Structures are given as structure tokens and as C-alpha cells.
């Protein structure tokens, strides 16, 4: 229920940003319509847009129509043709003549594959390195991996991405060109974006895991586990890591949700047609419906990811379940 309320609030905020703020700044409804229409609109399109968003009506009616089109779909009559935008209608791009939702669905596989592959890599690497560093605190392994982690946090994807493209793909030709458009393509061509993105996050997660493990391994229940005569590996994994992972899960939910809304820099660097790239193109081309739609989708993913984390928390931590 909370999530539905949150989505309503998000829709209100995006609505406010895209419609109310310009209005308050003195932008006329014609100008506003022009922004939605792309670069060179004709009069009929402008009328259709004004009608579509009820730009000349009072604000509550505008917002009502905006919500209604998302929930129930919408049709535009441009005078020349009637455009059908079925629910969930996140808007209609007059540049590409496509409902925004369809465009997002087209792009989603790319973004999803980038996010999932990178997440698997960074979780495996980050947590493993974090645990080893914590257990061998102060050792060479710890220092080296924390040094690399610091570098990882500090190096943006457009740096590592461009370097790896230049050397790994072009000069040494160790990996094929990064080329991925949909589920029918081989996902392993995304290996390089995965590694670059995972490098950034793995560094962060290694530090998180290390800090968490250092704290957990000093807990009384770890001493109890040892006192029971459990092998050290069981103590570390079953008792230590289990407790450490719970807070990390929260962070992961947020990061992953945000990535699903488009890894803008990664997609840009590797020229991958994902949701982030779609939004970016929308901004470049003043295709406001696309920007609006992409914003809603990103928000939706973050909210959903949070919701899932909340539910998982109950599964993982019995103290949450019972209170």
C-alpha cells in the first residue's frame, strides 16, 4: 500500500516538474505544448498535445487526466489521424511516432541485462573480497584489495569503459565489440560493460562487507559459535556473513533499482540502446514525453526494489518479521 502511495507522490512530483513549474515561470500553454511536440511541430499536433494534457484547463483536471492516461490509456486526435496509446500510457513521442511505453519496453532488455550481469559480478567479487579483507585485517591482501577498492570507487565508468574499449577490444582484440540489442543477442558480449560497472560497485561493496564483517565477527554470538566447536568456515559464513549481508541487502536493493532505470553512463560509453540512453536522447532532442516517461519508469523501479527489499528483510531477519 505504501508503495502505491509513493508512486502517486512520484507522479505528482514529476507532473509538477514538467507542467506546473514551467507554468509558474510564465510559459504559455502553447510553448509548453511545443516542448512536448519535438523540434518542429505543426499546429494540429500542438492542439492535440494541449488537448491531451488539458493544458488550458485547471491544474486538478490536468493532473487527473495525466493519471488517467497512465492507468486507462489515451487517444490523441491530431486532426490528421487518431493515435491510440493503450494503458499504461506514459505519453506519446511525436518524434518517433510511438507510445513511450513501447519504446521503454523495447529498450528494457538491454538495461536489464547490463544490470543483472553487473550485479552478479559485483556481489560475488565485492563480498568475497570484503570477507577475505576482514578476516585477514591488516595483511597484504587486505591492504592491496582495499587500495584497489579505493581506486574502483574513484574511477568512473566512462574512464574505465573507454580505456578498456580502446585496449581490450580495439588494440588487443581480446573481446568482440560490445553489441547487444535484445534478449535474442548473446548476453556475454556485454562482458566489458559488466566488468566496468561491477568494478565500481564491487569496490563499494567490498568496503561495506569488510566493515560489516569486522563488526559482526566481534559479536558475542560469533564467540558462541566458536565455543560450540564449529569449524571456522561455518562460523564465518553461516554466522558472520549471514548477519553482515542483511544491511548490505538494503543498499543493494537501492543500487539495483536505480540501475534498472538505466545505467546512463555505461550505456552511453558502450553505445548500448538501453533505457538510460533513451532518456538521454529524449533530453538531447527535446522529446519531453520520453523524458517524462523514462523518469516515471526509473522511479517505479526504485520503489519496487525498495518494496522487495522490505519484504526480503522480513524473510531474512526474524526480528523484523515478528514485530
Amino acid at each position: 500500500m505504501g508503495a502505491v502511495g509513493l508512486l502517486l507522490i512520484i507522479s505528482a512530483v514529476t507532473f509538477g516538474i514538467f507542467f506546473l513549474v514551467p507554468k509558474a515561470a510564465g510559459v504559455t500553454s502553447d510553448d509548453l505544448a511545443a516542448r512536448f511536440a519535438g523540434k518542429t511541430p505543426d499546429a494540429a499536433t500542438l492542439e492535440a498535445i494541449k488537448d491531451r494534457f488539458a493544458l488550458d484547463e485547471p491544474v486538478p483536471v490536468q493532473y487527473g487526466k495525466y493519471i488517467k492516461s497512465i492507468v486507462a490509456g489515451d487517444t490523441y486526435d491530431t486532426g490528421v489521424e487518431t493515435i491510440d496509446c493503450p494503458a499504461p500510457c506514459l505519453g506519446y513521442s511525436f518524434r518517433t511516432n510511438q507510445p513511450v511505453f513501447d519504446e521503454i519496453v523495447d529498450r528494457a532488455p538491454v538495461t536489464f541485462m547490463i544490470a543483472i550481469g553487473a550485479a552478479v559480478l559485483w556481489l560475488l567479487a565485492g563480498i568475497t573480497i570484503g570477507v577475505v579483507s576482514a578476516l585477514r585485517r591488516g595483511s597484504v591482501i587486505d591492504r592491496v584489495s582495499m587500495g584497489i577498492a579505493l581506486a574502483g570507487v574513484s574511477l568512473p565508468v566512462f574512464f574505465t569503459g573507454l580505456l578498456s574499449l580502446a585496449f581490450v577490444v580495439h588494440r588487443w582484440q581480446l573481446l568482440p565489440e560490445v553489441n547487444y540489442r535484445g534478449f535474442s543477442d548473446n548476453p556475454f558480449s556485454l562482458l566489458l560493460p559488466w566488468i566496468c560497472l561491477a568494478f565500481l560497485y564491487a569496490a563499494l561493496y567490498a568496503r561495506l562487507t569488510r566493515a560489516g564483517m569486522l563488526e559482526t565477527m566481534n559479536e558475542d554470538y560469533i564467540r558462541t559459535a566458536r565455543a560450540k566447536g564449529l569449524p571456522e568456515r561455518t562460523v564465518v559464513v553461516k554466522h558472520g556473513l549471514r548477519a553482515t549481508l542483511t544491511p548490505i541487502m538494503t543498499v543493494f536493493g537501492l543500487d539495483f533499482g536505480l540501475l534498472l532505470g538505466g545505467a546512463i553512463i555505461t550505456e552511453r560509453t558502450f553505445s548500448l540502446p538501453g533505457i538510460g540512453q533513451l532518456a538521454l536522447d529524449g533530453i538531447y532532442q527535446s522529446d519531453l514525453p520520453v523524458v517524462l516517461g523514462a523518469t516515471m519508469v526509473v522511479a517505479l523501479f526504485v520503489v519496487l526494489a525498495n518494496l522487495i527489499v522490505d519484504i526480503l528483510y522480513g524473510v531474512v531477519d526474524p526480528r523484523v518479521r515478528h514485530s
Partner: protein
Amino acid sequence: MGDKRVARGRRPELVDDAPGGAASAPPSSFVEVRDLRIHFPTDDGIVKSVDGLSFALERGRTLGIVGESGSGKSVTSLGILGLHNRRNARVSGEIWVGGTDIVGADPETVRKLRGRTMSMIFQDPLSSMHPFYTVGKQIVEAYRVHNDVSKQVARKHAIDMLGRVGIPNPAKRVDDYPHQFSGGMRQRAMIAMALSCDPELLIADEPTTALDVTVQAQILDLLRDLQQEFNSAIIMITHDLGVVAELSDDILVMYGGRAVEYASVDDAFHRPLHPYTWGLLGSMPRLDRERTARLNPIKGSPPSLINVPQGCAFNPRCAFRDLNDGRSETERPELVELEPGHQAACHLPLDKRRELWESEIRPKL
């Protein structure tokens, strides 16, 4: 009893004969600690948490280790279980448990003894049990490390153990999480876990401090019953002399990482021979005393374990320090046997101590 007295009487020679602990005689008691030292090197200096401790314990008997916070009680107990991290603790001396020297044995051997031959009940059962696993699972885990049985069999055993420590409706409570138990129930569950493999040595580190008085009494009764059933040796670590009087056969009073008095409970309570023990007895509330009588706390605070006073560690706080011409300030008193089975470490002449106890201390208790 006689057996143990022999062991005690012989101990000073053993320590002298085998300072390195390599070629020492095998132990005659079930638990024998010889010249145990546990030091922690820190940036500020070496913390000598335990500095030359020796005692012995037979199966079926209980030793109470008493002392203030920081006297080395808990460090000793963790040392017996071999739980000190070898990277930050220096452990020397000998700890014989059932024929194995914990200090010298390899970690894997010690691990296999833990939980099975010797186990421990910790002070705070809420933080000492894993919050994410059910009580049953934690007992099952403790049982299955040492016993090759199926999960079903282990679960039955866990329910059995919970019932035995007096948890009502154990078949249902076995699936509860620690936070769903009350404090007393948690401590019972902790005991069930510690006893799941029928350990021969049970170390209880302040098992009743976190509990209210009625539950304390129940837990002590439970420990006594279980000891009779399993014939285990119990080391009871506490700062509560009442608990010691209730349960122990012998008592070891620790101060500044060393034993200052080691005697039977009867001797320690009725004929104590160390001023620190007198102080502890004087600061203990008693029901048979007039309500207007004030408790006599020991003045001052425990010594820093980095710079333990050169002479007697208790000297700066001792009420009778002026009675022995400054010897206690320069020379550390050794623990010596003054009466059969009764040792104390104090420079005051024995007769003087007996006289002080009878004339000054005892009447005020």
C-alpha cells in the same frame, strides 16, 4: 577431595620443574591449569590479564572463580576453551582438560574438544545467541558438529534438551527465535545448547547476572541438577559470592590476574586468609545482618593490568598495608599452602591474619 588436595599440594613443584611446560608430568586431575599466563600486547604496553594462575578440578565438582571486573576471570575461561585469537593474545603455561593440553594442542584438536568435552554458558544470552536462527537450529548445530546424526534425530535431541532445562512446551518453542524467549528462558536455552553434547567440563561465565533474583535461583538449581546427572566439572565465574556459596565446592579469588586465595568454600567463607577476600565478604549484603548496618566497599579501584603494582597487587587498597613494614610494596607474595587445601598470597604473618579475622573482620560481617 583427597585426590585434589594432593594435586594442589604438589603444584608449586610442578611449576618449578617445568617452566616451559614441555616436559611436565601428566595431570592427575580432570582439569589442571598450571602457571597460566595470558598477555595482550597493545600500543600502551602488555596487558597481563592472567599472570601465573594454577588450579585443579575434578569431575562432579564445582570451582567458583571470583573477582572484580578486570581481574582476569573471563579471560581465563576463554583461555580454557582455547578461544583467544593467537594473533593478539600470548598464552603460555598449561591447561590440561581430560588429558589434552589446550595451550600446546593444535587448533583443530581444540576445536573438536570445544562443545563436546568442554562447553561454555555465556553471560548475556541475548547477544550470545544468533538472532537469525531459531533456538532449535542453534542447538541442532551444536549437536551435529560432534555427532553424526540426521537433522531429525538432532531436532528430537534439541527438544529433549529444552525440556530437560525446564522450558515448557519444548516441541513448540524449539522453532522460536531467541528474541521470542524471555531472559530466563534464553539462559535455559543457552544451557541446553552448552549441555547438548554432555560436556565433561562446563564453564559458566556469570550465568545469572542478567537475570532477576527468582530466575537466578532457578538457574542455579538447574545447574546443580544437571551436574549430578552428567557428573560434569563446573567452573563458575562470577563476582557474586552468593552464587559461589550456593553452588561451589572450591573457590579461587582472583585479583589483578592472579589468584590471591584458593580454598574450599567452607574455609573461604569462615576462615579466609587474604585481606581482599575479607573485603569481598564485607561488601556482600546479608539478610542476617541488621538493616541499618552499612556495606563496606573495598576502597579504590582494581589495578591497571599494564602496570600491576610491583609488590602485592592489592597493597594500594589493602586496609592492613601498614602492618608489615613495607614488604608488600616491593615483593610480590606467592600463593602458599597455609593449611591443608587452603592457599593464600599475603605477606602478613599467618597468626596476625587469623587474629585480625577473628577480632576485627568477622564481628563486622
